[in-house]
């Protein structure tokens, strides 16, 4: 772990000075690199997750990252491998749960809940097996941006790029399968395969996001930007782009705020995302309810 470096960091309210301070340390540059990769991946995958109503599956995958990372730390291999390994295995398990029908997005709540509870139990077991690790637990659950190495950034970048590449290739059929699995299947879209592929992507992305926001606050980047964007526009391309934009802004702002304050990054990212979400839903509600003084279109 890197020693907290904010001893000299004071907010001057001068944008140029503050930005220069922010990037003065290499660990902070790496934090921004990692945050950017994670924000883009989380925005894009989260947009599909919200559309497919698989938030519960996403939440479970996030919690599964906790025992994964705790177990990996206990074994002395990097937490990242625990995140990726456990989240992928959990994604495959969720995909293997019996489907009621061919529909890709039916959530098998009971089965997913079982996986979730078991994962949490394992996490606490690993934590108690590895006693010297109590500080780390906080970072696992609520996120940390300190001490991200060049190697870790590279791993995040590679995994994020793979996830995005798959989305670019399969995005349209995936959208079709998410909106209308019955018709998509009749049109020859491999609905079940896409459903499995998507869960795997979701697992990988959740593992990425967990490493910045912590496993409990993954939804800050996975759900809130997408939900906010979808509330604002129903055009698929615009709302996807808006989701990624919100996700990026929220992450960068969260990193900046965490740098200049003693509080954890997960809190800031979540609060900013929540503010955007609240503003978006309020805007949508105002737009939908036509006020009495709105003049009829000429």
């Amino acid at each position, binding site marked *: 772990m890197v020693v907290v470096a904010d001893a000299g960091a004071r907010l001057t309210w001068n944008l140029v000075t503050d930005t220069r301070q922010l990037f003065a340390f290499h660990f902070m540059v790496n934090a921004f690199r990692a945050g950017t990769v994670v924000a883009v991946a989380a925005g894009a995958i989260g947009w599909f997750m919200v559309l497919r109503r698989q938030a519960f599956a996403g939440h479970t995958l996030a919690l599964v990252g906790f025992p994964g990372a705790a177990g990996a730390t206990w074994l002395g291999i990097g937490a990242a491998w625990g995140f990726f390994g456990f989240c992928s295995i959990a994604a495959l398990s969720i995909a293997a749960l019996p489907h009621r029908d061919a529909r890709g997005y039916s959530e098998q709540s009971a089965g997913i809940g079982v996986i979730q509870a078991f994962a949490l139990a394992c996490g606490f077991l690993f934590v108690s097996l590895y006693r010297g690790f109590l500080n780390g637990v906080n970072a696992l659950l609520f996120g940390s941006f300190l001490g991200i190495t060049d190697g870790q950034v590279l791993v995040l970048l590679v995994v994020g790029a793979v996830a995005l590449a798959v989305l670019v290739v399969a995005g349209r059929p995936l959208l079709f399968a998410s*909106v209308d699995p019955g*018709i998509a299947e009749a049109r020859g879209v491999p609905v079940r395969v896409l459903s499995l592929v998507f869960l795997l992507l979701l697992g990988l992305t959740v593992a990425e996001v967990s490493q910045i926001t912590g496993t409990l606050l993954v939804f800050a980047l996975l759900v809130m930007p997408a939900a906010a964007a979808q509330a604002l526009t129903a055009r698929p391309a615009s709302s996807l782009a808006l989701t990624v934009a919100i996700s990026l802004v929220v992450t960068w702002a969260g990193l900046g705020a965490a740098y200049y304050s003693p509080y954890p990054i997960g809190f800031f990212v979540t609060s900013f995302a929540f503010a955007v979400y609240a503003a978006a839903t309020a805007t949508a509600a105002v737009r939908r309810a036509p006020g009495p003084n709105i003049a009829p279109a000429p």
Partner: protein
Amino acid sequence: MREAARDAIHARGAAVALGGRTVWQGLDLAVGQGEFVAVLGPNGVGKSTLVKAILGLVPLSAGALSVLGGRPGEHNAGIGYLPQRRAFDAGLRVRGVDVVRLGLDGDRWGVPLPGRTRRRRDADARVADVVNLVDATAYAKRPIGEISGGEQQRLLIAQALVRRPRLLLLDEPLDSLDLPNQAAVAALVSRICHDEGVTVVMVAHDVNPILPYVDDVVYLGPGGAVAGAPKQVITSATLTRLFGTPIEVLQASDGRLVVVGQPEPPAYHADRHEHP
């Protein structure tokens, strides 16, 4: 007997078994090109299964079935399909035109290049055309979850039509519509059938809204199916033979048909429909 190759759909002694249970068997069917045919029958008799068999989504366990001159599933690009369904989730934030558009190129891999390419202009024009054809222009740009069931149904018919199919398979499109909308959608489908020369197979619960328009009806029953003109099929004698219990067909003064004494569907069908 008609020539199998010229029919849009032709079945001889076809049977389907699902989960080890025969849904229907001994099905003989001939749907000519450009015809409007209704598939009728009580709940759970296998109407949707018939549509899925035509699409090749469910295999036959016996007999033969040819669709548009090929195996089922072979010419699905020429088929527009509207599955039996409940409404879209109210929270689905995708516009109606986007849903129609998915019917055009939603099965393509990769993302389209940004910019106004010729292909994109053609696609936009085609989508606007079909949306206009089903009279849905007024609400096509609203999120599909927020419009009414009848409006969704029209957009889904537009989606089924967007690739200029030769065969249109509509599974209970009148379900959950009020009577004026049932009549309007039935008239719309009949107009499309004649103007665009599309063969239409429509599963219906109640024959009356489509009675003025259909060429033939197929009545599915436990023993098989009877097909023919509505006047020959929907009669007390034919339906009594099909179901093996006394059934009476009454005609109201306005021409509507009422089927009395249709057997109750078996109890295990009660849980068959998916719930949201």
